[in-house]
């Protein structure tokens, strides 16, 4: 490799040394002088009226400093913020969440009181001494029953649990379906349950709050994906100015969307720190995390598809029911509407798409963004639909897909859903995956195995997703991203990014972008993030946006400084700026290699100013806010091969091929890591994971014993391939890869298992017991 760390090479991550030696600082590793500990008393009921709360005994426990309930914070701590409240009910307060429940609790785990004590053991002991008189109420757990008029109601004043209900006229699509039938085509119907999942990053949530009364300065360390949004909303919640709140996001042990939220505990710990005058730490226990951190997915979907006899899909009709749980968190109300509905055409050029949607409250934890956020649900429906159609027409699932893909020359392409896809070559990715796995041979092998009575299945999923949010209007606060780049006198470059990576390796990727642009070794670039006092206003890390939006801001800021340095170099070399080239840490006059000045010298000149020509402002520092004009649409095809044990119903993935196209790859090592991890989570949904409440609203999956995430022996060796279809919606040509694996994998695994059992569809998670019952017709 040349002197610059070239983009596109597998540079080892610079984050790792601190992580592999135990020196990284996560929130729970922070210890401040005089720090107190907070614990949260949570509802043991799914739905109950709170009659009285007696905290006397808890307050009297030695070591307890304070106990607070809703009464204590009333008027001081504002409600939990919602990014985009939708009419009609939500804008009038339905689903509004108070930091501590006041009259009613609405889910198992709903916070009721907090204890502040000298250490975490005492704080935990005191929870048992708080006496809450609850009056249990009937619960709404099943989302479709919750929509019925006789259901228990979470927000009585609204007389329904349905928050938004979008049912446009279906006259046109119904006519198309009727015509299809009249012309000898087929209609297939299916109901899909996209079960509720727990994001479960290995680090739970946690905060440390510190308050200096003299100038009302609040510092909050939080395990968050959104430092600036958290600061902005926390300031509103607490009645402070933005400049009085500093949010610091230290090392974060995974987020997957669940830390893209503003939770009660952030304001509560801050309130306690303000009241007691001492720093307060709260670290979520895993059982709290599984009960009270947002859940993901949880949709019930109805599909009807119309296709011609030769396999062309002419129309899809969807009904999407989004189970939002009990309250509105940051994006709860828009996951289905803004991320599922636009993606309901998948990779396919389908002329007619109809969707209706209900969003509904139930007595469960709030749902919100979990890796993929609404797009996995769309992909799952569309991909399962293609398989059901293939099954009905007795055609190969690969063939049906190839027949219906949007073709490369059609891009940019506006889908029937209204989504504008930037670029793609879906056939190439599918063909490549078929090639890697030797598809025809595999189908032969399957025939032979079947003849021997073995249950082998092959599943294909061709996905497309929407990344890089976002263009203007995506949210009320704008989804641009920022970068401040500063070049020191020594020539070292410091990047302050508004994104907030937490495992994605952007310190490395951004250093590569800068090193490459300035032709300096990436070691001379420092990347800082997560502190609202030093980084420019940013929007954080989620939605596979960090490199495409944040990286683009870094790139543009760097380019701007490069231009300035060229001007300075030109004056130093007595040449014209347009003739100056930057290579190997030197500015050189084009065609005169002997006339050059080192990068460092130009950096020194700019920072010391005395030798600068008149008219040039001293310093090398600039800030860019990059706002993309459009979203990016990464895509790919995953193929999964399974064998299901006849006797036990145990499925085993025997091969897994993933061909992903995320546009240009800046660091293939990191891209592959994202794909691996994404697939693992998608496989988790397909085969193992499910949040379960019983009919009384009790959570049955509150430890990792019951909420089963994949472990190493359950996953295969993934075989990766890729295609590269750049995008022009950002200057780097990148699309995003953080969620691709999760979106692509779930339908592939589900399809493989259904294929093994010779049925059209089975609802997830595809656990052995369920499969055994199907095999043995029990």
């Amino acid at each position: 490799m040349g002197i610059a760390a070239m983009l596109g090479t597998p540079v080892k991550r610079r984050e790792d040394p601190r992580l592999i030696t135990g020196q990284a600082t996560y929130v729970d590793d922070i210890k401040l002088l005089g720090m107190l500990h907070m614990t949260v008393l949570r509802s043991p009921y799914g739905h109950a009226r709170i009659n009285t709360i007696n905290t006397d005994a808890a307050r009297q426990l030695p070591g307890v400093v304070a106990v607070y309930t809703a009464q204590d914070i009333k008027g001081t701590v504002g409600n939990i913020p919602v990014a985009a409240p939708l009419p009609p009910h939500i804008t009038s307060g339905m689903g509004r969440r108070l930091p501590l429940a006041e009259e009613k609790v609405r889910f198992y785990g709903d916070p009721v009181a907090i204890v502040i004590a000298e250490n975490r053991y005492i704080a935990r002991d005191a929870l048992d001494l708080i006496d809450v008189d609850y009056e249990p109420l009937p619960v709404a757990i099943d989302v479709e029953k919750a929509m019925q008029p006789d259901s228990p109601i979470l927000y009585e004043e609204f007389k329904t649990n349905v928050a938004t209900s979008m049912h446009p006229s279906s006259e046109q699509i119904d006519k198309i379906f009727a015509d299809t039938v009249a012309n000898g085509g087929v209609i297939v119907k299916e109901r899909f349950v996209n079960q509720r999942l727990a994001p479960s990053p290995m680090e739970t949530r946690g905060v440390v709050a510190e308050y200096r009364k003299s100038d009302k300065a609040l510092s909050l360390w939080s395990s968050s994906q959104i430092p600036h949004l958290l600061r902005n909303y926390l300031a509103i919640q607490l009645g402070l100015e933005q400049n009085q709140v500093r949010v610091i996001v230290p090392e974060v042990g995974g987020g997957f969307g669940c830390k893209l939220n503003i939770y009660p505990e952030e304001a509560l710990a801050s309130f306690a720190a303000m009241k007691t005058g001492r720093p307060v730490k709260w670290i979520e226990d895993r059982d709290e995390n599984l009960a009270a951190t947002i859940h993901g997915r949880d949709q019930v979907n109805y599909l009807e598809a119309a296709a011609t006899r030769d396999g062309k899909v002419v129309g899809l009709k969807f009904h999407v029911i989004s189970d939002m749980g009990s309250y509105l968190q940051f994006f709860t109300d828009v996951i289905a509407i803004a991320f599922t509905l636009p993606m309901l055409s998948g990779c396919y050029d389908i002329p007619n798409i109809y969707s209706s949607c209900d969003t509904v409250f139930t007595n469960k934890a709030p749902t919100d963004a979990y890796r993929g956020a609404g797009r996995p649900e769309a992909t799952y429906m569309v991909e399962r639909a293609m398989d059901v159609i293939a099954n009905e027409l007795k055609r190969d699932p690969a063939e049906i897909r190839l027949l219906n893909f949007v073709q490369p020359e059609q891009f940019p392409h506006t889908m029937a859903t209204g989504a504008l896809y930037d670029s793609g070559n879906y056939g190439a990715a599918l063909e490549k995956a078929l090639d890697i796995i030797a598809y025809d041979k595999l189908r032969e092998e399957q025939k032979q195995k079947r003849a021997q009575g073995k249950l082998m299945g092959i599943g294909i999923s061709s996905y497309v997703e929407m990344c890089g949010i976002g263009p203007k209007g995506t949210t009320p606060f704008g989804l641009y991203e920022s970068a401040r780049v500063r070049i020191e006198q020594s020539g070292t470059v410091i990047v302050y990014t508004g994104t907030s990576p937490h495992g994605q390796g952007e310190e490395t990727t951004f250093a590569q972008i800068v090193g490459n642009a300035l032709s300096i070794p990436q070691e001379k670039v420092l990347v800082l993030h997560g502190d609202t006092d030093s980084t420019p206003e940013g929007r954080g890390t989620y939605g596979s946006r960090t490199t495409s939006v944040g990286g683009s801001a870094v790139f543009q800021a760097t380019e701007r400084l490069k231009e300035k340095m060229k001007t300075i170099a030109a004056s130093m070399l007595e040449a014209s700026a347009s003739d100056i080239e930057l290579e190997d840490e030197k500015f050189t006059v084009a065609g005169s290699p002997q006339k050059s000045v080192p990068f460092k010298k130009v950096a020194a000149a700019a920072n010391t100013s005395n030798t600068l020509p008149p008219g040039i402002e001293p310093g090398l520092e600039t800030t860019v806010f990059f706002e993309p004009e459009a979203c990016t649409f990464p895509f790919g095809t995953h193929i999964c091969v399974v064998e299901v044990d006849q006797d036990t119903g145990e499925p085993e993935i025997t091969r897994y091929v993933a061909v992903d196209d995320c546009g240009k790859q800046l660091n293939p090592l990191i891209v592959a890591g994202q794909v691996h991890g994404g697939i693992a989570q998608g496989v988790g949904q397909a085969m193992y994971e499910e949040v379960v409440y019983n009919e009384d609203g009790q959570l049955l999956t509150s430890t990792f014993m019951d909420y089963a995430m994949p472990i190493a022996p359950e996953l295969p060796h993934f075989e990766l391939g890729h295609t590269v279809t750049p995008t022009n919606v950002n200057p780097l040509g990148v699309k995003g890869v953080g969620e691709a694996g999760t979106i692509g994998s779930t339908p592939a695994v589900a399809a493989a298992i259904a294929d093994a059992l010779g049925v059209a569809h089975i609802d997830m998670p595809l656990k052995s017991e369920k499969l055994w019952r199907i095999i043995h017709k029990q």
Partner: protein
Amino acid sequence: MTTKRSITVTVNGQQHQTEVEPRMLLVHYLREVLDLTGTHIGCNTSQCGACVVMLNGEAIKSCTVLAVQADGGEVLTIEGLAPEGGLHPIQEGFWEKHGLQCGFCTPGMIMASYQLLKNNPHPTETEIRRGLEGNICRCTGYQNIVKAVQDASERMSTSAETPVPAGD
């Protein structure tokens, strides 16, 4: 509150004598009393392995062991795995093969790999996967962790240096 007990524990070669509540977990003792925060807590119920350390030469989940049970014992944590300023071959393997993303599971994963390689210096892929089934990683999908352990196994068999002894 129950009376405190005095315990003596050697951690990473250094002896500590401390008064602790009998109910204090070993992981809290390491993290909060000794400030060795490299050992993490991911579940508290013995499933995730983020808290794995070596106690008297055996990998244990320190969230499920009381500090008083370590009295008189020797503990090795991630902080003591490599000589000051250096990296243990397992740490190098994790770095080289991109065996971590958020890094939260990593100290426990490395300590579990240490135990695995101690028992079986040349494990197959299947043996590695099985050997790490007590450790959950939500980020990596395990593939690069497998590669990291394979890489470490090679490094350890070719390097003249023996791994840091774990008090055994």
